């Protein structure tokens, strides 16, 4: 089917796309591991179960059943249709056409028909999703960070891209069907195809050569579109189609109410109370470390993975009591800011060989104190997130930095700290009166 030159072009194109994709994925991996170490590898069975339930089964999505079903169609459809890519790539390399058809016979027709039905469904859902974003203007999809700029465009672009890809796939098959009926050379009898056969009307008036030109053009555009899509992910919230899986696997298994322990401080208190346990001065020589997080690299690597996995769906912000009552805090923004920041840090490293201070930090330049102060640590955002992201962990770490490194806390909090320290209670009561309630 393809000339030798076309085959070479194909192989080069595929090679370049895959190389570029891997290069960017490695960047992301490197950026994620700029974060602090955290062991999240225990209890593998539960972790695999989370991958199955949360990532593959999209359990949390089913809180909104209708959207969940539609989203599932796009996701399952897209993955299954991509099995077809395997054949397309092999066809491209070997210069054949529908090379699996002769081996699989009737089953091949069945498979292609499944792909076609899915493609049609994906196409319809993408249209519905575009309507939700642009005509119905579902608040969480059009407000806040999604009201303008790249995030807004990204959401629409990916849907349009998928519509184009599905359209090309179906039209390619339609032209193919007509060619099969004409007994065109190389066009293996593989039909009938249920969906594309509905589209054949348009093609029937053309000559065989024009049709072959059409079919080939669609074939090329389709595969180029796929390669483009693959490389687009790096720049998009659609990275979640890959990262939702590791994110589910590495999600924290402890109860949501449990904050991560700071062992360094735990030990400091222990040695203060029991000096006999303290290591000798030399042994205690450790690198001075920052308490809490000021910049993205002070966060746990899991928080950075979270940031890259975020789909910007806004479910967290929709559930956030602070956001819903008009405070500045938005957990989605926390995630998007973190991703933007670690991305900038990564680019800085790529450019300079190592990180050169750019005078900016995640705290203040991206996330403000006012946002952090509004959080009630209610965990609604964590509960809500369909891809196991914990915006609250980032908020907690930034708050730790503010309070412990900058002593930046509201006056009332300072009073509360003083009371706890002196009266063992957050209010100004004498500890002697702690059981006074029993006396009146």
């Amino acid at each position, binding site marked *: 089917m393809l000339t030798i030159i076309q085959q070479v072009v194909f192989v080069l194109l595929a090679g370049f796309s895959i190389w570029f994709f891997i290069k960017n994925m490695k960047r992301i991996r490197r950026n994620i591991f700029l974060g602090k170490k955290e062991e999240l590898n225990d209890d593998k069975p539960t972790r695999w179960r989370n991958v199955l339930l949360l990532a593959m089964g999209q359990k949390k999505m089913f*809180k909104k059943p209708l959207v969940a079903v539609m989203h599932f169609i796009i996701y399952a459809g897209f993955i299954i249709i991509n099995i077809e890519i395997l054949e397309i790539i092999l066809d491209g390399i070997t210069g054949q056409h529908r090379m699996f058809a002769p081996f699989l016979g009737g089953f091949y027709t069945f498979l292609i028909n499944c792909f076609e039905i899915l493609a049609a469904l994906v196409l319809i859902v993408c249209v519905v999703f575009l309507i939700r974003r642009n005509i119905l203007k579902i608040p969480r999809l059009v407000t806040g960070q999604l009201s303008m700029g790249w995030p807004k465009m990204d959401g629409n672009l990916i849907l349009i891209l998928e519509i184009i890809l599905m359209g090309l796939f179906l039209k390619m098959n339609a032209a193919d069907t007509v060619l099969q009926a004409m007994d065109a050379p190389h066009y293996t009898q593989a039909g009938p195809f249920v969906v594309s056969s509905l589209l054949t009307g348009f093609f029937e008036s053309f000559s065989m050569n024009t049709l072959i030109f059409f079919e080939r053009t669609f074939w090329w555009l389709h595969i180029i579109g796929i390669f483009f899509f693959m490389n687009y992910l790096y720049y998009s919230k659609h990275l979640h189609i890959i990262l939702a899986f590791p994110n589910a696997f590495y999600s924290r298994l402890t*109860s*949501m*109410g*449990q*904050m991560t*322990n*700071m062992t360094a*401080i735990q030990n*400091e*208190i*222990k040695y203060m109370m029991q000096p006999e346990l303290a290591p000798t001065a030399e042994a205690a020589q450790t690198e001075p470390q920052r308490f*809490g997080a000021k910049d993205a690299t002070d966060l746990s690597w899991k928080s950075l993975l979270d940031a890259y996995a975020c789909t910007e769906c806004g479910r967290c912000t929709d*559930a956030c*009591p*602070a956001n*819903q*009552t*008009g*405070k*500045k*805090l938005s957990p989605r923004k926390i995630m998007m800011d973190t991703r933007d920041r670690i991305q900038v840090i990564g680019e800085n490293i790529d450019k300079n060989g190592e990180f050169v201070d750019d005078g900016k930090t995640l705290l203040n330049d991206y996330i403000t104190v*006012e946002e952090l*102060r*509004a959080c*009630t*640590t*209610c*965990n*609604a955002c*964590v*509960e809500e997130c369909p891809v196991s992201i914990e915006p609250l962990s980032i908020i*907690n770490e930034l*708050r*730790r*930095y*503010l*309070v*412990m490194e900058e002593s930046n*806390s*509201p006056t*009332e*909090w300072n*009073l*509360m*700290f003083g009371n*706890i*320290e002196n009266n*063992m*209670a*957050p*209010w100004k009561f004498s*500890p002697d*009166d*702690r*059981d006074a*309630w*029993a*006396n*009146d």
Partner: protein
Amino acid sequence: MTEMLGLMINLKEDKTMDVKRINPSKAPEILFWVGCAGSFDQRAQKITKAFVEILNAVDLDYAILGKEEMCTGDPARRSGNEFLFQMMAYNNIQTLNMYNIKKIVTTCPHCFNTIKNEYPELGGEYEVIHHTTLLQELINEGKIKMSEGGAFKGKKITYHDSCYLGRANDIYEAPRKVLETLDADLVELKRCRANGLCCGAGGAQMFKEEEKGDKGVNIERTEEALATGATTIAANCPFCITMLGDGVKNSDKEDSVQVKDIAEIINESMEK
């Protein structure tokens, strides 16, 4: 004379609450962790007393730490002050271990969460239960029986899930099971269970002014509760009760709607 004095002291103590205090030579079966709100906050003290009355009525082998109890450190940790948290945790764990405490019940979901989830890795391992769970157990065992024609029979009650009992610790059923025994008309809030909306107090918000916004979180939540038409808003946390109580006052509904802890509701409804 000394006998007389003893009698007088006894008389005085009779008027006060009958509370079992920790006995250094014998650990109680279960320690009642009162918490700072339960100890000092006037509204929350009523919850504490109601719960003690229940514990006394069912004759449980419990005790309180009294003056030796300290803040668990929850508001310190959640506002970012890990030093202070670790300090409080260290001291509390020392005390609890010294008295050889094995099991703890508490009326505060923040204390519950901290002791249950955060103390173990600091050396404090105890069986910790929230009072609503204990109440459910006592009802199941037949130790608590509702009196005929209880105070809440047929009344409309709605239940507010606190974040630290609900989402943080997945306890949704026990409080509801307890309320079901009242023969009341239970209505769910629009946002309930895992979707429950915060009262606005968590994360040490209780101890500071709310950030700028359109509305108080507690007002939003109270309006939702009032919309159910319930005359009693049941809760499980002293902080939620303060926040929702303020919300009810804000709507000028304090005469027709009451905010109550489940322990208070049970104490008013049980046979004694």
